């Protein structure tokens, strides 16, 4: 299999972040204490014209032995069931990364750090 380019982890992270944040019931991504700020390099950005460089705080990407795993830390809204939102994020990230990069994500894991109550 020949590849023209390698999809950098920051690119995957950014795509994953956008997928997560667009999922209904997700309030925001939350890096927490272990969150990594993934660098969005100029070169990577130029390769993907049209993609807004989204902050990828709260998203961790690991690529090893051809396996891609994504982990997302986020906050959900109390109006939605946390488990359902978590599952929706797993599916959204997988779909979005496949659509935008052609990559198959092997695992998406979601840590819901907080459930935000309804606005007063």
């Amino acid at each position, binding site marked *: 299999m020949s590849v023209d380019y390698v999809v950098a982890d920051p690119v995957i992270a950014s795509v994953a972040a956008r997928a997560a944040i667009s999922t209904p019931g997700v309030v925001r991504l939350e890096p*927490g*204490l*272990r969150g990594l700020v993934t660098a969005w390099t100029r070169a990577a950005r130029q390769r993907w014209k049209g993609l807004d460089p989204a902050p990828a705080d709260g998203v961790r990407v690991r690529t090893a032995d051809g396996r891609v*795993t*994504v982990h997302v830390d986020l906050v959900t809204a*109390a109006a939605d*069931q*946390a*488990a*359902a939102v*978590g*599952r929706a994020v*797993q*599916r959204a990230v*997988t779909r979005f990364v496949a659509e935008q990069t052609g990559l198959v994500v*092997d*695992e*998406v*894991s*979601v*840590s*819901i*750090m*907080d*459930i935000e*109550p309804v606005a007063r």
Partner: protein
Amino acid sequence: MAMTDYELPCERDVDQVWARLDAVGAGLADEHELTCPHCRAARESLLALREATSELVAEADAPSPDLFGRIMSAVRAEVRRGSMVRLPTPEPGYVEVSEQAVAAVLRYAADTVDGVRARRCRVRPVPGGVEVELTLAVSLRNAAGGEALAQVRERVTAAAAARVGLTLAKLDLIVDDVYGEPGE
């Protein structure tokens, strides 16, 4: 000076004069208080102090508006990740939620019952769900009856399922305080 800081030449002390300020003002002065120039002078000074103190108390000096934000940013940076509870998912990978978030949801559900305030909420993951120990304060009128607690049980169980997606394997309610409400 031979006297201590707060003893007057007439051998009364400032503390006494202070304690008697209102009485004297109300016309209940004793013979000594009416005639002694030291007591009178001390009284006037203490009245001036009392007035100034009221001004000080009323001043209500406020910190700069960004202090609150600075405090809470530092606090949030330290929020422990804590324990996580697994939620069911058919997808590869896992979905988990912080115990702290679950506790907040369950406390909120308990709060919706009239005359009940949730205090502590302990969440413990077990196979198939969680065991919960919820500590409550109840108002006087609820202290005897169990109806409010039955409502708490119902709402907390429902919230765990509907808001989180968790089954409660066990729910222990502990009432550890009673409070009075206005009018009780």
